[in-house]
């Protein structure tokens, strides 16, 4: 069933009884060509690109809970391509291009809104670092504009320019950056993959990965054993746990990132705004809630919830940067599980076990990566060669020190990225 306004009209006139399930509930088969462990954004996107780009549909996505119940449903919905190091630059650039065609590709309104993203800076040194970044974006073929203080004021007149602790010096504007509706991305990819014949299996937890003679042969699950020629681990936040089923140790530490949303308000913030002297970034959803967050709580956690100190820091940052939102009421807080790597950049690679693939290490940046990650992992699964946009996301780069992508410059401490 194609979605469009005409369909809405027709169904509305007939009591909305004609809508069909967005996806099937198939019984798991005994074997598939490819098993994708993890029904989040990356896993579902991979399944669709396998079908669409490579014609591979004998695929199962195994999700231990409900589809899109992990980080894809818990993030702050930001989509951007403003990374500067080789490896990241071409990857996110590719992802943004895929985002721009996503609604048409999926026939699902993911509400991708390129409202513009502004990184504020508060010192000459910070400005210079953002200039380096902006020039990298332009060299990559993407868009960046350097704003001075007056330029920032024209876009964001509501910031505190009069009495701040860290005055705004200017900002880097990324006009094509913005937001998208996170649940819609998961549901859109899921529906599209299902329509092409991929089996989406929910309530199916992988409890073992079968390896024989250095080669993967299948998985054990709470819904039975499934044989597979290729198995991909795409379980952000739990990558370490799932990889351990195959005896692998990963360079990943799991951390909690808190995020917050306020009650719905009439429009007040049109851009995505990021504060340079504290952990704080914010946008406003189409339903009116201010969606914002800060940094990790900094201690390893699988709890999907954080504590007061980071929450208070984020709120204080809001008050120093834009006290106009002081009377917005925080409605809800939540947390996800972040795969933190020693350089803050992801891993899309084969492992030492034949037929076992990894897509992990997205830290807190996985949402914007969903299309390009799915695309690249599908390419790797289909051809056993990395796609050129993700060729640097190697698992062994920490061991060799070659091709590290440390955007923050904080070094091999997982929670500093």
């Amino acid at each position, binding site marked *: 069933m194609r*979605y*469009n*306004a005409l369909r*809405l*009209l027709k169904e509305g006139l007939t*009591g*909305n009884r004609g*809508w069909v*399930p*967005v996806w*099937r509930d198939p019984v798991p088969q005994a074997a598939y060509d490819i098993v994708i462990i993890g029904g989040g954004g990356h896993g579902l996107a991979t399944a669709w690109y396998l079908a669409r780009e490579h014609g591979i549909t004998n695929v199962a996505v195994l999700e231990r*809970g409900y589809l899109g*119940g992990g980080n894809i449903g818990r993030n702050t919905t930001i989509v951007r391509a403003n990374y500067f190091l080789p490896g990241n630059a*071409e990857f996110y650039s590719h992802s943004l291009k895929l985002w721009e065609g996503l609604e048409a590709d999926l026939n699902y*309104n993911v*509400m991708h*809104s390129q409202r513009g993203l502004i990184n504020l800076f508060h*010192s000459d040194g910070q400005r*210079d670092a953002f*200039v*380096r970044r*902006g*020039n*990298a974006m332009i*060299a*990559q073929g993407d868009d960046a*504009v*350097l704003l001075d203080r007056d330029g920032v004021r024209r876009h964001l007149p509501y910031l*505190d320019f009069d009495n*701040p602790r860290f005055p705004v010096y200017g900002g880097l504007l990324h006009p094509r950056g913005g937001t998208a509706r996170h649940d819609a991305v998961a*549901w859109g990819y899921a529906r599209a993959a299902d329509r092409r014949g991929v089996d989406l299996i*929910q309530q199916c937890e992988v409890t073992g990965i079968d390896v024989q003679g250095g080669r993967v042969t299948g998985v054990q699950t709470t819904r039975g054993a499934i044989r597979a020629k290729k198995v991909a681990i795409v379980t952000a936040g739990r990558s370490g746990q799932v990889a351990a089923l195959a005896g692998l140790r990963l360079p990943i530490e799991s951390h909690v990132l808190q995020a917050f949303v306020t*009650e*719905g*308000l009439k429009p*007040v913030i049109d851009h995505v705004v990021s504060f340079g002297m504290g952990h704080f970034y914010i946008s*406003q959803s*189409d339903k*009116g809630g201010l969606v914002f967050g800060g940094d990790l709580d900094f201690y390893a956690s699988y709890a999907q*919830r954080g504590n*007061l100190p980071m929450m208070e820091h984020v*709120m*204080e940052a809001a*008050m*120093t940067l834009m*006290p*106009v*939102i002081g*009377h*917005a*009421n*925080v*409605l*809800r807080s939540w947390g996800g599980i972040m795969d933190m790597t020693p350089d803050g950049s992801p891993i899309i690679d084969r492992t030492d076990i034949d037929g076992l693939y990894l897509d992990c290490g997205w830290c807190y940046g996985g949402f914007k990566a969903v299309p390009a990650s799915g695309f690249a992992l599908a390419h790797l699964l289909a051809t056993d060669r990395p796609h050129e946009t993700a060729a640097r996301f190697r698992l062994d*780069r920490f061991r060799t*020190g*070659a*091709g*590290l992508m440390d955007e923050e410059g904080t*070094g091999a401490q997982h929670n500093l990225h």
Partner: protein
Amino acid sequence: MRVPGRGLLNAAQQVRFNFDGVAYDGLAGDSLASALLANGVRLMGRSFKYHRPRGVVTAGSDEPNALVTVGRGAAQRPNARAPMVELFEGLEAVSQNRWPSLAVDAMQVNDLVSPFLSAGFYYKTFMWPRAFWEKLYEPVIRRAAGLGALSGVAAADESDKVFGFCDLLVIGGGPAGLMAALVAGRAGADVILADERDRMGGRLLDEKEGVGGMAGHAWVAGVLDELDSLPNLRRLVRCTVTGAYDGGTYGAVQRGAPGVAHETFWRIAARRAVLCAGALERGIAFPGNDRPGVMMAGAVRGYLHRYGVAAGRSVAVFANNDHAHCTARDMAAAGLRVACVIDTRPEAPASTGDWPVYTEGAVTGTSGRLGLRSISLRHAGGQRDVFVDTLAVSGGWNPAVHLTCHMGARPVWRDDIAAFVPPEAAVPGLRVAGAAAGVFTTHGALSTGVRAAHDALDDLGISATPADLPEAEDAACCITAFWQVPGKGRAWLDLQNDVTTKDVALAARENFRSVEHMKRYTTQGMATDQGKGSNVTALAVLADATGRSIAATGTTTFRPPYTPVAIATLGAGGSGVGFAPQRFTTSHAASIAMGAPMVEAGLWYRPGYFPRRGETTWRQSCDREVAMVRGAVGVTDVSTLGKIDIQGPDAAAFLDFVYTNRFSTLPPGRVRYGLMLREDGHVMDDGTSACLSPGHYLMTTTTAGAAAVIKHLDFVAQVLRSDLNLRFTSVTEHWAQFAIAGPKARHLLNTLLDDPIDNATFPFMACGAVTLAGVKGRLFRISFSGEHAYEIAVPARHGAALFRLLVAQAETLGGGAYGMEALNVLRLEKGHITHAEIDGRSTAGDIGMARMLAPQKDCIGKVMAARPGLSDPARPRLVGLRPLDPTAPVSAGAHLFAPGAAAVREYDEGYVTSVGWSATLNSNLCLAFLTRGADRIGEQVRLVDALRGHDTLCSVTDPVAHDPKGERLRG
């Protein structure tokens, strides 16, 4: 309307207020909702999607409909719940989400097209034409979204935060909480009792029940008197405990008295806690259940007993449980007409008055656009229509379990009371009592409150005497679950977000079967009440639609805050300069007096430059200061650099371990430059360490790196090398330190030192104790500027005086103070690095210091620096750049390309880290990282800053542009 002789308010204390531009009178102690109802105003809001007329449904913080904006300008607060807004003289409130008025809202046209706006409709459209999403659809949606509006004026930062500590935190001041507090308070425990309302007593103030042979509110008053007499008990009214966190930490928001904007955010560390938050009534979904006048039965009774307000003139009751029947009894006793009681069950309590009690009953429809006028009902005996303006609905009670589930646990369904109750021991140290635990009788609340307090006191080892339980009702809970009345017309679940039973059925039909999918797809439970009034009913409807039990369907997660909290409260103190500490040097006042603009350097403030008469741009001052330092002498404050005093027999070995080069070979009286790596082999920081005497060293770090370095040193000393015998401490604030740089530096010093120095006694890189006018200081002959230079350190209390003295002396010698701009140019001319070059991604090799890794010793970072990726000769290497045209524009952050290559990523060969105009060399200068830079000295590269439009051809040079042999440093 107000019912004389009812309620707890004083009829003599009138308060004037304003709602939607109309003036009304209320009483002190009224909420905005009760005062409006007293004035016959029932229409209080419009729903989010369909803009349907709505009235108040509850009497508490779970209110989904009656949201108003209170105040104006900086004091404007949107989305206030009318039952929680306390009346004060002059209160101004306006309704929200309507235009032009509450009674006539243009957007109610949405309701006419509601079949096309069902759950999730926006995912299925708005995709074509592509450009229209951002240009048309989205802006329209955004303007229609949201309920209240912010004023656009900065909210005053007038709230504050406190820490609180107690043995026992009692959450909720109803019967359960009051007994718990009484037991613990009498036992001498340190108790905090918090309740979200302006008065304690909970439902005892909302019902007619007696306790201990007297009226409920009278019993409460007696208990409060005793509690307030206990010095070990703090009673916080208007204080909502918003979240349960790890380690017995609770967040709570305490509101101010009516009209007072100030709020306090509490961080309470409680050794034990008892949740006595009561229960929230839920409704029944039936067609037309959203008209103003359809209210929770418990709220109807609450308005009557607490505020003396009748919600309407005539009432019917629709319920599935015994307890709700007393609504009819109470309203009749207050002189109001009771039309009937409609009970869903086959058997129900008999009528206690002149109204019929219908069994197997259901309300099947309602009428009255701006307020309820009549209901249609069916029952065992047939059907009828009844004219009433108020329908009191009760589908049962949901224990307020929220805090028990803040750590990820889910509540447990109990069929016998048709309610979710808290999971066992889900939050360490937190017990539950009363209705929050599913114990719905007054006697039960009192006794479980006592029990919970005793158990908590046992944990704490505090002995308590058993309390006498006053007599109270103990009627069994009689309820039969009933969720929805099928039939024509929309039956509402989430009143604010306009989610109906049909939406939930649609979600199930489209296979959004998980309760999380249903919530996100329909937006049920995502409104400002976080689904307090609709979650359980909606999941019951979903369970029905998907053929599962309620227990199997489960709930969504519970998250703080329990009720919404203003950002200004959670972030109190963060606005303006309160956000972070400000660190000032001892020369700050003098710098300001000299007109220097102060620049943030981390948390410090440092002077940018010292403008002199006639100088109108920073460049003029900077160029003059550079020339002044190179030609005469300059003085600048370098106190902000980290200083660490290190002492002990193994201090030298320690330095050898943390630095790449050797310090064990440094003799007393000498200073050495040191490079410090992270364990991953990249440069962490650089600085100098001086050997003041055997086993006594003074390390300096960069300003930005100071905190990280000392943390690292602590780690090395305590964990990695606890075999080493040494102590160290930060002395950054103890010493004021000034650089004196220029050909006349020694001359200047010798005018101040008690004992003059010369090159023999104080050669380059010497250090030692000195005195100036009797003040003991330290002198280091080191140079960041590349000139003959020293740094003089005195105890901080002498810093201000010394700075003034140094500057005055320097000016007599043709010199003076210089700031950060000049400092940057001076070091740039010498190729000295800062954190612009060591940005966390560079190695010693990258900055040309590979030789500083002393070969025969281990040090932090040594092994990992040897990884192939870090020792690759193709890595970018530090070079200098000079534009072929000396005045052509250069900028930090520009990228480098070979002259013929396109300026795209594939040909990117490096980037510029620092730039400055060198008055000394009459040219723009840069430092940059360039692929294989060391092999390309003399070549040309293109410096491209696409952001600013610079494209400048440069020569690759050695990083040191001025005095490469360092002759000016010595002698």
